[in-house]
């Protein structure tokens, strides 16, 4: 299938950047240590903050580092490239292909995420688990649910970044929108602090936003916070956002390709 080949190609493509991967692993591990020490101090001062005990909080921290590259919590995660292609007009080449633009980029992003989950996620997670107390599950089913949840998180992350990237059809420079999107994502995904730490209505709202699908929900699935139906609901929540955001992306895509100038001679 075409899109499977696109995903596989994208995987191989990211696999060629060995030094970038190595330095990414190093960075993730260092940041993991910093956040783990911070959380240790925080959860020692306020035990059971947000319903987590210390090992759960620490596992949350390392899950964040493991998913950071894959779901694109901090970076554009590959969408900078789409933005650049729109800006310089290379998108004309993509549009000419007898393939769907969104599916193409989704496939490429899934391939990228798969590589980064393995290449950049496994090692920091292993180091963190050895160096700190951890609450990793023993059940294979939980791990399986976690992987599904991560996959859905990647799709939600992609759908959000795709929307941001498409704004480049109207805005000649997408840097501002990207920056706002990145900050929103960093905070609302639970990257800075787990979202269940936030009290009251604010916490309720943040947990319902799509960004929570990218870290908070997968981490909770891994930590076994939900029971059986709860886990199913969590996955349904992610799938719902994925569907809504992908549909929004399609809509914006059709408006963009119909109306907007393909830039550059």
């Amino acid at each position: 299938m075409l899109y499977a080949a696109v995903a596989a190609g994208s995987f191989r493509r990211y696999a060629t950047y060995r030094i970038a991967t190595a330095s990414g692993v190093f960075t993730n591990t260092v940041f993991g240590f910093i956040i783990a020490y911070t959380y240790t101090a925080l959860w020692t001062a306020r035990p059971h903050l947000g319903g987590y005990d210390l090992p759960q909080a620490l596992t949350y921290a390392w899950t964040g580092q493991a998913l950071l590259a894959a779901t694109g919590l901090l970076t554009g995660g590959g969408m900078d490239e789409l933005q650049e292609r729109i800006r310089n007009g290379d998108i004309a080449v993509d549009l000419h292909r007898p393939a769907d633009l969104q599916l193409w980029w989704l496939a490429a992003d899934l391939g990228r995420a798969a590589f980064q989950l393995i290449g950049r996620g496994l090692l920091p997670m292993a180091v963190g688990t050895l160096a700190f107390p951890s609450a990793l599950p023993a059940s294979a089913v939980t791990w399986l649910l976690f992987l599904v949840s991560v996959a859905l998180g990647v799709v939600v992350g992609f759908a959000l970044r795709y929307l941001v990237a498409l704004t480049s059809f109207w805005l000649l420079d997408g840097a501002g929108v990207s920056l706002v999107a990145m900050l929103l994502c960093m905070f609302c995904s639970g990257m800075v602090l787990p979202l269940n730490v936030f009290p009251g209505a604010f916490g309720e709202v943040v947990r319902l936003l799509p960004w929570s699908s990218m870290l908070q929900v997968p981490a909770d699935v891994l930590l076994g916070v939900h029971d059986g139906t709860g886990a199913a609901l969590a996955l349904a929540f992610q799938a719902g956002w994925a569907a809504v955001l992908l549909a929004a992306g399609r809509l914006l895509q059709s408006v963009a390709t119909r109306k907007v100038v393909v830039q550059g001679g």
Partner: protein
Amino acid sequence: MRVGTRDTAPGARRQEEPDGTGRREEHGFIELDGVEKVFHVRRKAGRLRRVREEVRAVDGISFSVPRGAMVGYIGPNGAGKSTTVKMLTGILVPSGGRLRVAGIDPARERTRLARRVGVVFGQRTTLWWDLPLKDSYELVRRMYRVPEAAYRRNLERCVELLDLGPLLPVPVRQLSLGQRMRGDIAAALLHDPEVLYLDEPTIGLDVISKAKVRGFLREVNAERGTTVLLTTHDLTDIEQLCRRVMVIDHGRLVYDGGLDGLHAVGRSERTLVVDLERELPPIEGVPGARTVKVEGPRQWLAFPAAQSAAPVVSAVAERYPLVDLSVREPDIEDVISRMYAGSTAP
């Protein structure tokens, strides 16, 4: 003669081609009828004020290209060439007029048409930057659902004619410009397209790569009967490949006919540059040529582009101490500006 205006378009100056590549064919493979593309651009006018400006990139173009033809589509920068190609592929929707390729409206059925069309945007690449060239071709095979046998046959042919063999395992980012361009041209042909649009396929290439690309295109056109529309800056591309040439300027078709006719209309001239042994007074008495510039021992002689350089060279060599010489071809900008100058003269 006047350059085609809106009332006379779709006329422009047309020369009937003896081989029937002119307007005689009723249903061309590519049909444009009064096609327009208008962009609206916002321009700053003062601190806060923005003015909406209309840019007519393509301003009422009509032409017809029969199946199997190889046609040059030339014009200066910003004339509307690439915009036309983008409308032909369906990436841009025309603001007005009627456009059909193989009977299909490209903007409405872009994907369906794309399976029958190959495009090379010379300054962009369809290849996958970080992966071996071969991988991009595999992707093309899946994208266009090329049957295995046809794919292998086409790839072999391209590899042979474009010397791609050693390049297949090389990541595209490591290819030189000429190699990449050859790779892109092959990618556009693997699915046996009926029509091939080439937007500046020789831009930035060295002489050897250019020759290779031209030879290949000639072959593809002759062998498979692929209709080719070639956009270029390089008149030599046209001279070597196309019997018919269309000139576009400011979004309008200003000439449609044979290349000789273009030279005649544009009164274009080639230049013979000669290096003499020593400084001498301007060369005189060479039939058909006149000396236009003298700089020390070097002199420039202009002669009509349609005329052979041989008699000019031999006439000079006979009577002057010749050290070195070169012939410069007229460029498109030159020809077109002369066309305009000619059209306003009485």
